């Protein structure tokens, strides 16, 4: 790989042991993918919590802090596994919570901004067209690449942290023009009206083309999607299809036209209809129809989503024995409180957690058993995918239907 003089110095240890080790890791990953150089990044977003990194990861972070590691560029953290105000209420592991606190203080010591959000692109930083970043959480990456036209690969915790220390990342994958071109044409013959519909479309396209370098191009979108619509579409494509980028002709910046999006390539063509979406909803097994858990999470909710929920729940009560969980970030929770949205959700009996995402909550598998949770109803196609790993039975439904399930404790087949 071609290194600049500055990078050579870093690799030689002139800037310290921590960036030297970080660069070494990045070079090995870059070489695997045939990267020819590194590119400077303006912003890093990393996954760092004890549930995900384990004791080994925590020990690694401790060593890096001892080596005097410092972030070279603005670095924020993804959603984590504890909202410390709810550890007791949820009966999470107190020892793990203590480790998480220790990790947070280590990260802060190294200059990491522990923002604890998976919607940094809505709340913190919107990189511009062509801007290189190193982001982790697949939903953040696909949004940055697709909607903002910024450039990032999926950068998992250790390498995102390495990018924070070096201020660079290897130029492979979506940093390169040729990887950003579309290769699947998705003819949309559906009229998505709800966040869950967008997620459903993401699932339909994603699970049939599981490939990081599959780049779907959506055409036929009639109603201009909102940022939250695109967030749910992207998160679902990334989760079900492991995809890091999509285009939407007339909507996303690198797809002004179909030709623009494909750059001359010959795509495979798939069609998604309203009927496909309805069949998808109907395909979830609702078992005996009881539902004692409704979750709005994955990604965290925007202020607009909180507003919608507060309106749907205003003056109503979640059924006794049913749990309604909402996750968002600190900023949105704070704003939602000031605007009265939080009060309406909480008065209805909903729990609003901050800084977490439902599926990475510590002890989630145990909590499922203790609370007798089986059917999990959600409007997030991403959550519906991931949570099955913890033996929940996920059921995707539209936002209004999810609220109805929370009020009645019943989920019906459509």
């Amino acid at each position: 790989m071609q290194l600049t003089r500055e990078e050579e110095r870093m690799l030689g240890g002139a800037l310290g042991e921590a960036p030297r080790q970080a660069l070494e890791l990045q070079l090995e990953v870059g070489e695997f993918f045939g990267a020819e150089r590194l590119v400077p990044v303006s912003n890093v977003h990393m996954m760092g919590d004890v549930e995900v990194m384990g004791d080994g990861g925590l020990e690694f972070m401790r060593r890096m802090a001892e080596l005097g590691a410092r972030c070279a560029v603005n670095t924020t953290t993804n959603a984590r596994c504890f909202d410390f105000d709810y550890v007791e209420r949820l009966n999470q592991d107190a020892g793990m919570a203590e480790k998480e606190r220790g990790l947070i203080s280590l990260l802060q010591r190294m200059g990491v901004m522990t923002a604890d959000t998976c919607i940094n692109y809505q709340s913190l930083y919107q990189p511009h067209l062509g801007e290189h970043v190193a982001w982790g959480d697949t939903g953040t990456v696909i949004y940055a690449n697709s909607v903002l036209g910024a450039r990032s690969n999926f950068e998992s915790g250790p390498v995102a942290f390495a990018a924070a220390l070096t201020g660079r990342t290897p130029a492979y994958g979506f940093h390169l023009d040729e990887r950003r071109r579309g290769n699947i044409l998705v003819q949309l013959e559906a009229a998505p009206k709800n966040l869950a519909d967008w997620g459903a479309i993401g699932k339909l396209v994603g699970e049939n083309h599981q490939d990081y370098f599959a780049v779907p191009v959506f055409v036929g979108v009639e109603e201009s999607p909102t940022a939250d619509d695109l967030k749910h579409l992207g998160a679902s494509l990334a989760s079900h299809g492991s995809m890091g980028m999509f285009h939407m002709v007339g909507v996303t910046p690198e797809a002004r036209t179909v030709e623009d999006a494909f750059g001359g390539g010959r795509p495979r063509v798939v069609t998604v209809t309203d009927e496909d979406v309805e069949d998808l909803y109907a395909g979830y097994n609702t078992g005996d129809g009881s539902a004692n858990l409704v979750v709005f999470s994955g990604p965290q909710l925007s202020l607009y989503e909180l507003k919608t929920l507060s309106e749907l729940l205003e003056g109503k009560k979640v059924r006794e024995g049913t749990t309604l969980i909402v996750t968002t970030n600190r900023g949105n929770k704070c704003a939602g409180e000031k605007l009265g949205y939080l009060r309406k959700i909480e008065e209805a009996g909903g729990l609003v957690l901050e800084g977490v995402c439902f599926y990475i909550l510590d002890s989630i598998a145990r909590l499922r058993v203790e609370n007798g949770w089986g059917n999990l109803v959600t409007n997030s196609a991403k959550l519906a995918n991931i949570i099955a790993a913890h033996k929940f039975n996920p059921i995707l439904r539209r936002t209004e239907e999810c609220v109805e399930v929370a009020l009645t404790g019943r989920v019906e087949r459509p």
Partner: protein
Amino acid sequence: MSAENREAEIIEVERAAGKVVEGVALMSTEGFSPRYDLDRWTGEISRPGHAVEGENIKDKVLFFPTAKGGIAAGWAFHDLKTKGIAPKALVFGVTNPVMVQGAVFAGITITEGWSRDPFEVVRNGDTVRVDPSNKRVEVLRRE
């Protein structure tokens, strides 16, 4: 062994990182996520219905057609290594950056791309050598 037979024992790979390792092959027709298919305390493939459900990955050379799952896999291999239940190598048909990042960080050998269907070459339980610098996987001993 004749040259032809030797040929039959080798898979060329497209990309590779890590050290030369030898281990017992575990062949899966289904993709893999170290987060969602695995019991992270025992190393057993635990997701109900997974193609190799019930098998343990410790010290194995794992053959998976695809990679599944999100960003969390980046820490997962290092965690497995710390717990002493890591595989020796990951031999993917198609992988994604997270798997590569996670494996390199943990010091676990990883490869991507198969010159031929590994099921025609390797059987479950065979001892294989993964040689990243020569970009190849070869069968050393039959089960």
